[in-house]
């Protein structure tokens, strides 16, 4: 294919795709408009019920089809020996998939590693976010450093993995380095830095850094807003009483925003539990870096062990429930106080 025809074919493919989008969105809005127009003619005692049905049924239908039934099906699948998608004959094997998850050494390690992620990432994300929130709170022009820390929020986990690839990449020490971390190590006198992504357990911690890098901005923004919401009089009178620096922070600011800190912690925890992209992109779970979310993906879609993958999904679900409920309770309590 010549270059010109390649360009034309690419352009026409792009055109077709985008035309499809316009048609789909336009069609969707058009159908809504027609339904609204026809239903708008109805008056009298049927008007209200009809409006309720039109407004509510699409959402109810979609959450039932997309979340409720699938969740129940997955719970059901987790008790079967289903191997691949659409398998017709499956038999129930009780709790075997769960027993496997907790006794198989590789999966056990995966679970332990996930717990490590769960403890370390939220702690550091909140730590950095809090530090940054306190610092910019004292600045005259806080927006630039704030944006710098907040920006990774907009970057995909895959994009982040590429970005950090240039930090962690490894070359033989005799060659010019391409990875920043190796170069820093060499500059600091460590002449033979290891291949970072291959050395366990270091690789797991290095990947945690990526997620901390992404999540710190979120916690900075939410904690910063909470710090701003503390009445000035409180801070001022504490300062009058001689509290400053660390003491002010520990005995005034932290207690006053405690519930926000908890909400941020649990939110980052939930994200951490479910992130599979970073490990998937950087090591694909090799070199002792696997975590539940990635393992579950490969069980379900790569290695044909749908039953086992479903059990991991249910474990994830059960781990998330208390976090979400705690979160909601805190949020609600906070709203009541305000």
């Amino acid at each position, binding site marked *: 294919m010549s270059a010109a025809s390649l360009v034309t074919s690419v352009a026409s493919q792009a055109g077709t795709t985008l035309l499809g989008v316009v048609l789909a969105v336009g069609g969707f809005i058009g159908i809504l408009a027609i339904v609204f127009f026809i239903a708008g003619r109805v008056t009298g005692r049927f008007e209200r019920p009809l409006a309720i049905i039109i*407004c509510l049924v699409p959402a109810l239908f979609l959450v039932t089809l997309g*979340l409720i039934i699938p969740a129940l099906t997955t719970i059901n699948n987790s008790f079967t020996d289903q191997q691949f998608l659409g398998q017709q004959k499956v038999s129930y094997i009780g709790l075997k998939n769960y027993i496997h998850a907790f006794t198989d050494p590789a999966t056990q390690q995966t679970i332990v590693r996930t717990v490590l992620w769960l403890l370390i990432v939220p702690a550091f994300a909140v730590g950095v976010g809090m530090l940054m929130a306190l610092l910019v709170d*004292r600045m005259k022009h806080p927006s630039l450093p704030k944006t710098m820390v907040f920006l990774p929020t*907009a970057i995909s986990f895959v994009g982040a993995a590429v970005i*950090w690839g240039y930090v962690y990449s490894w070359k033989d020490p005799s060659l010019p380095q391409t990875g*920043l971390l190796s170069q820093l190590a060499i500059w600091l006198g460590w002449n033979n830095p290891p291949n970072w992504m291959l050395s366990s357990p270091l690789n797991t911690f290095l990947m945690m850094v990526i997620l901390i890098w992404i999540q710190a901005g979120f916690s900075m923004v939410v904690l910063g807003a909470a710090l701003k919401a503390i009445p000035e009089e409180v801070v001022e009178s504490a300062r009058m009483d001689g509290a400053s620096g660390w003491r002010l922070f520990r005995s005034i600011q932290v207690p006053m925003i405690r519930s926000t800190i908890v909400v941020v912690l649990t939110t980052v925890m939930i994200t951490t539990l479910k992130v599979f992209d970073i490990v998937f*992109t950087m090591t694909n779970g090799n070199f002792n870096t696997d975590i539940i979310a990635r393992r579950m993906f490969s069980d379900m879609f790569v290695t044909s062990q749908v039953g086992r993958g479903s059990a991991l999904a249910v474990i994830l679900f059960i781990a998330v429930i208390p976090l979400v409920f705690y979160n909601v309770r805190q949020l609600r309590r906070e709203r009541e106080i305000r």
Partner: protein
Amino acid sequence: MTSVSTSADVKKPLKGAEARKAVRRTFSTPIASIAAVAIGLLWTIPTLGLFINSFRGKEDAATTGWWEFFTHPTFSLDGYRQVLTGSGGMFIPLVNSLAITIPATIIPIFIASMAGYAIAWLPFKGSDFIFFGIFALQVVPLQMALVPLQQYYVHGLRIAGVTILPSPHINGTIAQIWLSHTMFSLPLAVFLLHNFIAQLPRSLMEAARIDGASHLRIFSSIVLPLTLPAIASFAIFQFLWVWNDLLVAKVFGGTDPNQQPVTARMQNLVGNFGAHQELLAPAGFLTIVIPVIVFLALQRYFVRGLLAGSVKG
């Protein structure tokens, strides 16, 4: 020691904005500013490395570190040219990402705001239960939905061998990704938009009723326009979420590279270590640049949404 020395200071307590300024002045130490800027720089360096590498010559980017740019600057757009025009490049994935993200952002806005309106302003027996039920579904990790939903797309919905709902026959198309993202976004969207819609003034609705407007008419010509700030918050959230998503795209996107969004394409590129090493930086930068622009432009709405509790559960 210093500020309480004169009696004038003590007699006149500062209030409001003035007090805030005074406090900020006392707190504003150069050390805090330097530390904040230092952390900001530390957070930017990795991205800066990618950015610089994407503009360096292919050879240089693959064999030397990006910091060499400061001592031996080379500049070349070859990487971008190849990534944008070459076959298997990023142009079609970028188009696909847009094609996935735009409908997957617009469709849930309508469905969720309609539901939020019905629950907030047309209460009926059980509407509270429905609201709480949809809200509680935020607990369900979308990982739980993947296999059964995929099965539905291929075979239709069967319970105990009986087909209840036929397959929509959209298997392998991007419509499947739109639909999935719409479903997964609804708990958050309904929650967020309902909370906003419920706070619209009652008098407005009553006046419109008296003027003879139907419920549906009130929704389309009063509620929807007034809800725009909340819609903006949700839309930027959903846009970033869908654009940056890899899992849903990977599961429902099929294996055809012509249908992959940027994230999936990028993940393939990274997986092929060595094969297209020199394209990684420009491709990576193209992957992140659109969400970053959207984010910077609409940061205010994003923060507002964040503080209103729009965090994907």
